[in-house]
């Protein structure tokens, strides 16, 4: 009796949960309504069977509960009943399957007018490539991959020269234009998934896979990696920004072509030296930084990282948060650098500083536990290197040599969403997820004390 009632309650409760649940598919933002329709058909058919079977089960449990004066029927087989159940089930199954197969046929045949864009995955970042003017993507191979050529384009393939390179986690696409996304991985399996678009597909190293959709809503949508790809899998996030056609074109025009990325003139250290004069006020002559002036060490830092940060300061991506006191100062200073060329010059000068003969600043944090810091650092070292040397391939800056107070402030900024929250701070978002793992100030002290020793 109790069991029969509970079964009924579970069924009714499930139905109520379904209708009361705020958790359901995200609003559709691509032309895949057909998938949602198929889901609805399956939902109603299976929902009906779920209710019918379990209500009948509850009825049977109640109706044929134990009675010492009754004997069970002896009725081992009932051919017509079994036949009918088989037929009805088969019909129900095909009612669900058939529409699904039609929609799948649509999925496996991208429309002819679809634009092509390539998504490149690597642990734990996204990159994108548009085919450029000639509308053809150039050849690639793993062996061409280098810091300067992160997507591994064949430098001798003329078709690749005009390809447009987007070496960060933000993909822009125009609205109402079908896109066939070619998927390529540099290292392990990944999966390109945008919940609002419904479709997803794995990126497989050694293969080019594809998926297509037509965005129908303006807005920014999360890209998630949905195939386990290692320890920072959960932090492999990106964004698709769906723009009006003209905004998209404007955005695309501002991206460099492959040829441009290869011929990028590095800055001139001589000019950079002149520009650096103003930096040296705080960051010191040899780029060693100055704790009293809240200026971190710059010498030895990766140029790629410094250029990115200077751009961020100039664009208000970093140093714009009201609680980021020192960042705001730096944003004012970065504004002094007139253009990209000036940034390149100054960074190229910093690259010549080497470690200099600058003395290392005395640790300012004394309460850290170095052993605990060492064990905490293990998760950092996957990207930042075992010696904190940084890894440009992963856009992970050098940590070794940085002052402990600076590292601590940045970790706190990440934790408190002062840094990394800006929608254009691609890699900062990942660092926020990582910094969130440090649960106490003590842990931060431990970890920066350890890094300080590297």
């Amino acid at each position, binding site marked *: 009796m109790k069991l029969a009632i509970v079964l009924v309650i579970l069924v009714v409760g499930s139905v109520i949960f379904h209708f009361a649940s705020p958790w359901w598919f995200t609003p559709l933002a691509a032309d895949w309504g057909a998938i949602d329709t198929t889901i609805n058909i399956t939902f109603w058919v299976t929902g009906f*069977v779920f209710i019918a079977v379990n209500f009948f089960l509850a009825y049977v449990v109640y109706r*044929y509960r134990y009675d010492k004066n009754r004997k*069970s029927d002896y009725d*081992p087989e009932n051919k017509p009943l079994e036949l009918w159940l*088989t037929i009805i089930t088969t019909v129900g199954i095909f009612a669900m399957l058939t529409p699904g197969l039609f929609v799948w046929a649509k999925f496996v045949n991208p429309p002819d007018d679809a634009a092509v864009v390539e998504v490149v995955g690597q642990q734990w970042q996204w990159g994108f490539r548009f085919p450029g003017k000639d509308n053809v993507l150039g050849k690639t191979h793993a062996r061409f991959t280098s810091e300067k050529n992160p997507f591994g384009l064949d430098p001798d393939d003329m078709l690749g020269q005009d390809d447009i390179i987007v070496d960060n986690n933000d993909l822009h696409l125009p609205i109402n234009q079908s896109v066939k996304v070619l*998927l390529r991985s540099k290292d392990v399996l990944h999966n390109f998934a945008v919940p609002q678009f419904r479709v997803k597909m794995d990126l497989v190293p050694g293969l080019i896979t594809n998926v297509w959709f037509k965005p129908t809503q303006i807005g920014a949508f999360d890209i998630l990696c949905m195939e386990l790809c290692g320890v920072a899998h959960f932090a492999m996030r990106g964004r698709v920004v769906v723009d009006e056609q003209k905004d998209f074109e404007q955005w695309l025009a501002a991206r460099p072509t492959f040829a441009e990325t290869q011929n990028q003139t590095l800055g001139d250290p001589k000019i950079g030296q002149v520009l650096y004069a103003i930096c040296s006020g705080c960051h010191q002559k040899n780029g060693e930084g100055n704790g009293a002036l809240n200026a971190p060490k710059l010498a030895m830092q990766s140029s790629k990282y410094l250029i990115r940060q200077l751009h961020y300061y100039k664009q208000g991506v970093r140093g714009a948060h009201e609680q980021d006191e020192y960042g705001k100062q730096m944003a004012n200073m970065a504004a002094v650098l007139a253009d990209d060329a000036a940034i390149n010059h100054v960074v190229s000068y910093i690259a010549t500083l080497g470690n200099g003969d600058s003395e290392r600043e005395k640790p300012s944090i004394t309460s850290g536990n170095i052993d605990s810091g060492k064990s905490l650092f293990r998760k950092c070292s996957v990207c930042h290197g075992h010696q904190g040397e940084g890894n440009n391939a992963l856009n992970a800056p050098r940590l070794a040599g940085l002052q402990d107070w600076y590292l601590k402030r940045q970790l706190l900024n990440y934790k408190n969403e002062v840094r990394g929250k800006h929608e254009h701070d691609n890699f900062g978002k990942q660092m926020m997820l990582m910094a969130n*793992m440090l649960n106490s100030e003590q842990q931060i002290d431990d970890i920066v004390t350890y890094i300080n020793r590297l």
Partner: protein
Amino acid sequence: MSYQTITDQPELLDHGPSSFIGKYIWSQDHKVIAIQYATTAIFVGLVALVLSGLMRLQLGFPNTFDFIDPSNYLQFVTMHGIIMVIYLLTALLLGGFGNYLIPLMIGARDMVFPFLNMLSYWIYLLSVIILMASFFVPGGPTGAGWTLYPPQAILPGTPGHDWGIILMLVSLGVFIVAFTMGGLNYVTTILQARAKGMTLMRMPLSVWGIFIATILGLLAFPALLVSAIMMMFDKLLGTSFFMPAIVSLGEQLGHAGGSPVLFQHLFWFFGHPEVYIVALPAFGMVSDVLSVHARKSIFGYRMMVWAIVAIGFLSFVVWAHHMYVSGMNPAFGFFFATTTLIIAVPTALKVYNWVLTLWRGNIHLTVPMLFSIGFIFTFTHGGLTGLFLGNVVIDLPLSDTYFVVAHFHMVMGVSPIMVLFAAIYHWFPLISGKMLHTGLGKFHFWVTFLGTYAIYLPMHYLGFLGVPRRYFANSGTEFIPESAQSLNASITVSAIIVGLVQLVFIYNVILTLRKGKAAGANPWNAASLEWQTPQVPPVHGNWGNKLPLVYRWAYEYCPPGVKDDFVPQNIPPEDLIKSDDER
């Protein structure tokens, strides 16, 4: 004649081992081996249960527990999965119940290769020890997910990519050796050692389920074995079976030309039948428990047998439904979606037949019966959600989300475990001679049944939303509302409660073994052969001096014209007492 009976051996009882070690350690008695298998499997299962608790703590209450970081989170996920699927479920259902029930149910004295049977257990134990050792090596166990997909399983960036993965692959290889020894034994025993009169179509469905599952295992496990060996070569010898040209964390590797998708085909060629290696014995055992406790013959026995055979066959042609978004040729989707949904037909028929077995029965709501009816509910739920994932195009939004996690836990986690508990409560009186405490058993059932539903029903909805699985943290996404976090917290609370209540079960077992009340022979009045041994619990050799003769099927409950409400398989027709109205 399709079988060869073993000659009766009057002096057999004198041949039993007498020393403690011979009886309980290096035992060749299938019943002792079954208990060894079961105890070991339940022990590793508890380890996996604790691991799931740890990962749920992180998901329910992120940034609360310092000792959980993305590395060991993935290690918990991986080890939980692999232990539960292979080292617990496969080992307990086949090594445990398969070993215990086959000889008793078919009227044999033991397995046909007792020494091999003993070896099978000790090699299984070795595989468990190797697996557990990976917790103590530098870098810890592998965190590549239970599917162990290369390239990431053997590359830096994945926890345990040095020692952990090697021990994992070795352990799987050793397990497969153990399984093959046991499996060949079960199949041969069922085909060769049935008692006189025990035709194939008189065997209890438990034996049918175990029989077909074992055949599946013997055909499927080699695919896993070769993929483990190939991955080991890739890792240790630098071959490129599964490794294309790769730039790993900025570094060029020496591999070229391999295919990660090849591994997935091999893995799922094993992995999908594996689902049925777990499910079919459970299907069989639950059929028997339902029939006994409803005092009614199983409905549609022949259909049930053919359904088991059909499911077993079809399970080999559906594997790529795990790979709809893997990058394999998308045209395969048409074929595999069709086969996958077709497999739902025999599966649905089994559900109907279970319910129709209860229909017009006389249902005793004993603890095994509660678990069995609970199984019908959870399995129906899990089976129906499978129709979403199998229908290729619906898999696009749901693949790799919590919907998948919820689905497979309902269908091959909760459901087989409901059957395992039903089976333990049902056969415990035979195994130990004592009856488990009913009150504690009912408490155990209610919390487990309701608790698991409270875990997995809401989890499907996280999947609809698009929340990805195997994520250490979900923060920083626009589309996941805050409320999803409270849902995750409630799932974690339910999971912890369900986890803890298993201690009540263990307490019940220990209490019963120490001072439980004697159950007596055949306390459930079951008709099948295993309850008809001369001694309870059955002793070495099972049948005393004479092997049983079988006269009918295993489901003779309330036959017309007979006084008792059941007729054991080995009672000669002339000994039946007619009911009053027939006299």
